[in-house]
Structure formats: structure tokens, C-alpha cells
């Protein structure tokens, strides 16, 4: 395997950054997230980043098209799509899986989302393995191998003081080629992955949930929820969006931005009808979506065990505990 000392990793990134836009996990203004590589970037390789890579492909706010509306007339103009390739370095297995989930949503089932596809098509994904799970991690419970990501162009391995690279796709091979001068070929054995603190047994959960729509468990689970969207906005798989406009006089821009099923306005209909009026309905929909509806539709869970929601929820809504409660119900 081709390796490089961790301390020398910036050389690799530096080299790639000459040709590509390189996004790396780094601490940026108080939060760890994927950040364009610069020399003074504060790399964050110890733990997974707080903000998942979702917003690289599906930004929180994205311009769709612009328009000019005056009296009876209307002009619509699309923005040109970018074509520069970008490399995203250091995506963990859980987040690689989340990109798989997002691909399902945005690229399959009759329609392809062109905004997502464009960014996805010009992204080269370098996955990075985990050896020491955080307290809140439970990716293995979701069937994810922390050392082997799905969909990567290159799989990078955390080897302690070194990083190993393995090309998976053709593009991956090309990239590795470009940095080969910096790498050393050597035999490596992958370090063992540490113990997981959190676990969830999802076996049979989607099926069991088919009969649990009216189960009293939802009253119980939902009571402490605040109906904020912290969980959804840090979730690597949550993908709901709203389409809104920003109008300044005659000129306007259609934007799409993240939305969340916890909000009242999300399903509120024009006449005032609200199909999911309260906490219970919304919390139930959220977890059914993750654990039943999404598997029904796309044959995979909409949770990757990254544990971000467990950490960030102000009232400790813990999906692993909810899965346990479902199992025990």
C-alpha cells in the first residue's frame, strides 16, 4: 500500500490543490467541517467533522435560477453549472454511506436533480478509515465498515502515524498517480478498530415498524422533542428542502434551502390543513422515514450511525435508544 507520514499529509493536499479545489476536514470558525484547503487550514483528522459533507453536494442554501418579473412579463434564467473538479478528502465511512443515501434520493426514481448531480459528478471522494470510534459512533450497527467505505474513489487508511492510500476507481488511480512521488509503497496491516460505545440492533426494525404506526411508543418518544431542526441539519442523510424566493423589486432568485420535517410550515397546506399537526406526528414521521419508509423505497436505512444527532440534540433524542424501544415494544 502507498503510504505517507501523517505529518506530511499537507504536502499531498498542497500538490492536489494546485490542480483541484480540495476540501478537507478542518476547524473553521469554531466548527469542524469540510473546508477548502489552504496552507493555514486547521486540519481536523482526530475525529469526524461536526458538519457532514452533505452541504458540498446539497448546500444549505443554493441558488436555482434567477428571474425578472414585472407586471405581466417574466424572464427566467438559469445559472451556468460549474465544471471544475474537486477532491473531498477524509470522508469517513458513515458519511460515505450518507452520500450513497443522497445519491438514491437525488439521482434515482424518475428524476435526476441537476444541481446535486453536477456537484456529485465533479467530485472525487477520498474516504478515510476510522480506528478509534467516538463515544457517539454506531456505524457498525448500521452495517457500515469503518475501515472500508462505499463509493470512494480512493480509500485512505488511518495507520496511526501514517496514512495509507488505496485507489478504488479509475479516477482514484489517476489521482494516486499524481501524488505517487510523495508516497512510499509498503506492506501494512490495518490496525484493529476500537470498541463501540453505542450499539443499535436494526435487524427486523423496518418490518416491525410496519405495524407500529399507531403504537403508544410515539407519544412517549416525542414528548421531549423541541421540534427544532438541529438533528436534521447535522444529519448527513437528511435531505428535505424548501424552495423559496428572494425578490428585490423586479429581480428575484429562486433558492432552495434545507428544511426539516420538525417544522410546522413544512407540511402546512395553503388552506390551513396540517396533516402532521404535532410533535408526535412529526417525530414519528422522522423516525419512520429513517427506519422504515426510506428502506421501503430505496432498500437502505437512512441512518449511518454517525452519532451527530445523539450529540447535538438539546434533549438527547437518541436514535439508538429509540431503536431499542422499538425492538422492545
Amino acid at each position, binding site marked *: 500500500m502507498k503510504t505517507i507520514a501523517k505529518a506530511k499529509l499537507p504536502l499531498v493536499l498542497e500538490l492536489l490543490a494546485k490542480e483541484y479545489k480540495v476540501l478537507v476536514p478542518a476547524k473553521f470558525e469554531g466548527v469542524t467541517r469540510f473546508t477548502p484547503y489552504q496552507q493555514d487550514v486547521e486540519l481536523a483528522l482526530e475525529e469526524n467533522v461536526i458538519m457532514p459533507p452533505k452541504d458540498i453536494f446539497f448546500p444549505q442554501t443554493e441558488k436555482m435560477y434567477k428571474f425578472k418579473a*414585472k*407586471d*405581466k412579463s417574466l424572464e427566467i434564467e438559469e445559472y451556468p453549472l460549474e465544471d471544475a473538479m474537486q477532491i473531498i478528502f477524509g470522508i469517513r465511512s458513515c458519511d460515505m454511506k450518507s452520500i450513497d443515501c443522497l445519491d438514491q434520493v437525488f439521482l434515482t426514481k424518475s428524476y435526476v436533480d441537476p444541481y446535486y448531480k453536477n456537484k456529485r459528478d465533479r467530485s472525487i471522494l477520498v474516504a478515510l478509515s476510522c480506528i478509534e470510534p467516538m463515544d457517539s459512533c454506531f456505524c457498525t450497527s448500521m452495517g457500515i465498515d469503518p475501515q472500508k467505505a462505499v463509493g470512494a474513489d480512493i480509500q485512505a487508511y488511518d495507520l496511526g502515524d501514517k496514512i495509507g492510500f488505496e485507489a478504488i476507481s479509475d479516477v482514484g488511480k489517476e489521482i494516486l498517480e499524481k501524488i505517487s512521488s510523495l508516497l512510499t509503497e509498503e506492506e501494512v496491516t490495518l490496525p484493529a478498530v476500537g470498541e463501540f460505545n453505542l450499539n443499535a440492533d436494526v435487524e427486523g426494525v423496518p418490518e416491525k415498524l410496519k405495524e407500529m404506526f399507531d403504537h403508544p411508543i410515539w407519544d412517549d418518544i416525542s414528548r421531549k422533542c423541541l421540534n427544532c431542526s438541529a438533528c436534521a441539519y447535522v444529519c448527513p442523510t437528511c435531505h428535505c428542502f424548501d424552495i423559496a424566493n428572494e425578490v*428585490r*423589486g*423586479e429581480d428575484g432568485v429562486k433558492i432552495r434551502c434545507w428544511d426539516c420535517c420538525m417544522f410546522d410550515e413544512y407540511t402546512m397546506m395553503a388552506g390551513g390543513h396540517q396533516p402532521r*399537526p*404535532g410533535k408526535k406526528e412529526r417525530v414519528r414521521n422522522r423516525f419512520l422515514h429513517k427506519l422504515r419508509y426510506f428502506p421501503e423505497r430505496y432498500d437502505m436505512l437512512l441512518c449511518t450511525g454517525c452519532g451527530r444527532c445523539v450529540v447535538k440534540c438539546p434533549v438527547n433524542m437518541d436514535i439508538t435508544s429509540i431503536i431499542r424501544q422499538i425492538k422492545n415494544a
Partner: protein
Amino acid sequence: MKRVGVFICHCGSNIAAAVDCEKVAENAKSFPGVAFSTDYKYMCAEPGQDLIKKAIKEHKLDRIVVASCSPRMHEPTFRRCIESGGLNPYLLEMANIREHCSWVHPDDKERATFKATELVRMAVAKVLKNEPLDKSTIPITKRALVIGGGIAGIQAALDIANAGHIVDVVEKEPSIGGRMAQIDKTFPTLDCSACILTPKMVEVANHPNVNLITYSEIEKVEGYVGNFDVTIRKKARSVDMKACTGCGTCYQKCPSKVPSEFEMEMMDRKAIYTPFPQAIPNKPVIDRENCRYFKTGKCGVCQKVCPTNAVDFTQEDELVTERYGAIVVATGFDLFDESVYGEYGYGKYKDVITGLHFERLINASGPTMGKIKRPSDGKIPKNVVFIKCVGSRDEVKGKAYCSKTCCMYTAKHATLVREKIKDSNVYVFYMDVRTPGKGYDEFYTRTTDQFGAKYIRGRVSKIYEKGDKLIVRGEDTLLGRPVEVEADMVVLATAMVAKSDAAKLAQMIGFSYDQNHFYTEAHPKLAPVETHTAGVYLAGACQGPKDIPDSVAQASAAAVKVCGLLSKEEMPTEPIISAVDEAICAGCGMCVPVCPYKAIDMKVIQERVHGKTISRKVATVNSGLCQGCGACTVACRSAALNLKHFTNEQILAEVDALCL
């Protein structure tokens, strides 16, 4: 599709000299929603207005922007204009391009034109969000309430009654008459107070349009202008007003003696009593606290002696509720509590008295039959000292304000002492002598020059007893030396203060009062008898220290306001008022205290939530009270309150339009 018409006025050359009006009109054509735009020499003139009306028809305009002078000038004009053109008058906005543009930027036509264009764009953005508004009306109950039966209340009641309206006068005491009834003579004419007051009292009592409700208090006031629902507590008189003939046998025979409030406790009355001989109604009440029957259950003399069986011990307080269109508050004043000035020895030395005591002492029907005698030993005083500004103009111990009447009544007292006791000496300690009023200064001059009262400018520092004399020690600040006067009697000119329960009544009705608890007029100059609560007016000393002529004048002024109101069947209400979106209102009530007009109440509404009927509180705006200031809209965090014609949406649209 909304169709805005824009009309740019040249105002002759007033605007056109500094603003390129044609260009502004041309620019406006490209603003969203503008269907027609033009300019004209004089928009407000008849041809200009016709131009607007014609354009409304020809171009199917449904809202109008006029860019001209200040809306404070011509908004009513153009509202009428578009109304006669078939539009709701509130579908008008004005851009002020004269006072705010051409007149202040005469030398930079380019930028003035640019500014005018922007002002028009803001107005267009706003008018697109204007809603038609309708003036509604509220009915007026043709009945007035006067609270307080002193000279101010009597005068107001008579004026209202003479104009043909029904008026109820509520008086707390058993008789009307108030403070003026206690006074002996009035300055500056020295005519007898009773002689001029009593006929008024009789007149008001006999007036077919006036109902006197004495020995009664206001319990509760609800509603708003035109429709005040007032609950009045008629205290139990224990005497059947219908049966009683006022013969007086009962109080002649009553065994319980009580110090008379009317006589400043210098004389006794009975437990069943009329406050003074000329009382109206001249029918007694039983003072239950001091009545032997009510205290011990034994006695009942009055009942036994009453020839008409009018005494009724079983009477109870009665609450009556009546609706009034307008209220005049004329509750009068109290006197400052002089005991604050320990150095004057009031209460300690019997011969230190107040002005009002003095009024009773010189009154022919008073405790001394009009002879000035010392309360302590009944001797005729030789040396009388008057001290002015007791409690007034003294921020530390008393009130900061000037009590206004004391200079004159002290001069009056001084004159009377000199007149009645030929060999007397009168000393007046004063800070200033203030005599603005017709004949007032002449009166004061007579007091000093003709009657020889000695005025000493200075404060009194101490009064102490020496034998049967009172030593008054002070300083003559003009001569800059201490003075000491050996006095037989000292009269304190105590300040007029607000009634002790003044704040309570103001809160009940809902208008404001100042830090001294005098009632606050709506405007110190231009609305001196109005309160901030529509339909509630002020008369007399409840608003601030006043003498009789001022009180009477204010009472008549208040009466005119009432008559003006009651002369209408209904009153139009301003449609630019706040409105509550009940779906949003959480009922927190934050809007209530910020409303200066008490126009916001909380009400309970019922609604269905998840198949269950629940009730919750929401704010509601009383359209009769709301004046459209919009304070509530900012107090409401969730924007459940919005001010019509100046809505959040409209103001945001204006801000946005400015920045395009």
C-alpha cells in the same frame, strides 16, 4: 392585477423649479404595478383633481399615488378626490416632494429629481399593499355623568343640562356644594360664597335634566366613549329620601355627637345629620359608624321621632349601573397634611390653624357665628400671623408646585381680620406674592396699603408657645435679619393636593395622572379639559390647584366638549387602528400596558384543536378607543397586532423599495 395611478404635482414652480416632474412621472411608469403616470401643474386644484378622477375611470386605476406637498396639507383633499372618483379613500398614498424635496434641495435638480423618484417608488410600493378601510361608527348614549358635586361639577352639570342633555351628578358626600360651601367669602370681590353658590345648588337640584346622586361613589367603569357603563354604589343613607321632608327633628333629637367635618371639627354634628344647613338634598343621612343604634343596637330615637317614618335602619348599599356617553370628572381637592411641618406646631398648638379652619371661623353660620376667636380660649386674637406656601413650592417636605390660590385667600383672610378686629396686627410670611388674575393684584395692594397687613418675606423656622402667646420665629430675607412675632393665632396657607383616592378613580376610568396624582389633561395647551381617554373630561381642582373662576371656566369648557359629543347620534371611528390576528395571538397581554388609551382588552375565544374545543385568551382592540399609534404592534413579538394603513408589510415594502 393592481393598477396604480401616479400623479406628480408641479405646484406651480414650487416643485417643478427643483424637480423635473415630467421625468419623475416618466420614471414612475416603470415601477411595478403602475398603470398610469402623469404630471400636472396643480394637482390639488379642481382641474388636477378632475384629472385624477378621469384617469381612475379611463385607466381602471384602483389605487393612487400623489406626489406633491406634505400629506399633512392635502391628504384629506386627495382622499376626498379619489373617493369621489370611486375609490376607497384609503387607497391613496402621498409622496412629499415639496416640503421634503424641492423646497429643501433647490440647487441640485438632478439629485432632487432622483430623490423625488425614490419617494414616489416608496409610495407606490406602499400603496400596492394598501387595503380599503371603512370608517365605522359607534353609537352615542345621550346621557352624561358628572363625578363630583362641587362648584365645578355643578357648573358642568348645569351647562350640559341646559343644552338639553340628561346628566347625572354623583357626589360622595351627603350634600353637593363641595369645598366652596365651606368658604366664607370669595376673593377678590369679597362677596359671600354661600350667596352665590346656594342658588346654583338649588338650580342644579331642580333642573329637570339633572339627577343628583349624592352619598354615592363610582364602583366600576367599563366601556368607552359614547358607551361607558358605570356602576355607582349608592351608600345606604338609612333615610328614605322620598318620605323625608327634611324637617330636622331627627337630628335635633339624636343623642350621638360627632365632630363636624364640614366645620373642620370645630363644632359637633349628630350621627344623623345634614352636613350644613343649606345642604342639598336637605335630607339627613345616618353616619353608621357613630350611630348608637348601629353600634349598640339600642337607641332608634330618630326613627321614633320622625314624623314621616323615613328612617330606615335596614337600608343597604345599592349598586346601579347606567350607561353614559361622556364623563366629566370634577372630584376636587384635599388639603395638604400640615402636620408634616412639625416646626409650625399644627396639632400641638390649638391656635395654629389652616386657612379652611379660618374660613369657618369667620363664617356667620360657623362655630363662632362669624366672630374670629382663638380655638384655644375663645379670645379675640390681636396679632394674627399667616404663613404662606405650607406644603407648596417645597420639594423636600411638600409639593413642588405652586398651589395658586393661597396668595389670594391669605390676602383675603388678612383683609378680613383687619376689617373685623380693628386693633389687630396682621403679619404674612411669604416667599412670593403671586396675583395674576383680574382684580387680584389690586386686591393684594389694598390688603397691604389700605388694610395694613404686614408682609414679611421669609420662611418661618419655628413656632413655640410662650404663655398664651405663640412665638413665630422667622427671617425677614429682605432686611436680612431674624424676626420674631408674638402671635395670638397662626393661620397656615396649606397647599391644595389631589384627593387621596384620585389615582384609584383614574385607574378605574382609565386615564392618567401626574406624580402628584392630579389628573393629566390630554394636552397642556390645546386640550386642557380632555383626558387621553376619549369621552372623559376634567373640571376643577382635580386637574390641578385652581380658584373658583378657573374651576367654573373649565367646567363650562368640559360641558361644551360633552355637549359636542352628545349632540351626535353616533361617532365615526378612525379606521387606521390596530387589529389582532387571533390565529397568531398567544394572549400574553404585552400589548395591554403599552396602549395609552386602554384600547386593548383580553377576551376568551373558543376553537377546535385536534377535535377538542378549547378556549384561550387573545387580545382585542376596541375600535372606539384605539387612536392608531401602533405602539402595540411593536410590543407584540409575534406580530399578531398590526396597524392598518401602516402595516408591517407596508413599512417593509417601503424600506425595500427605497433600497432598490
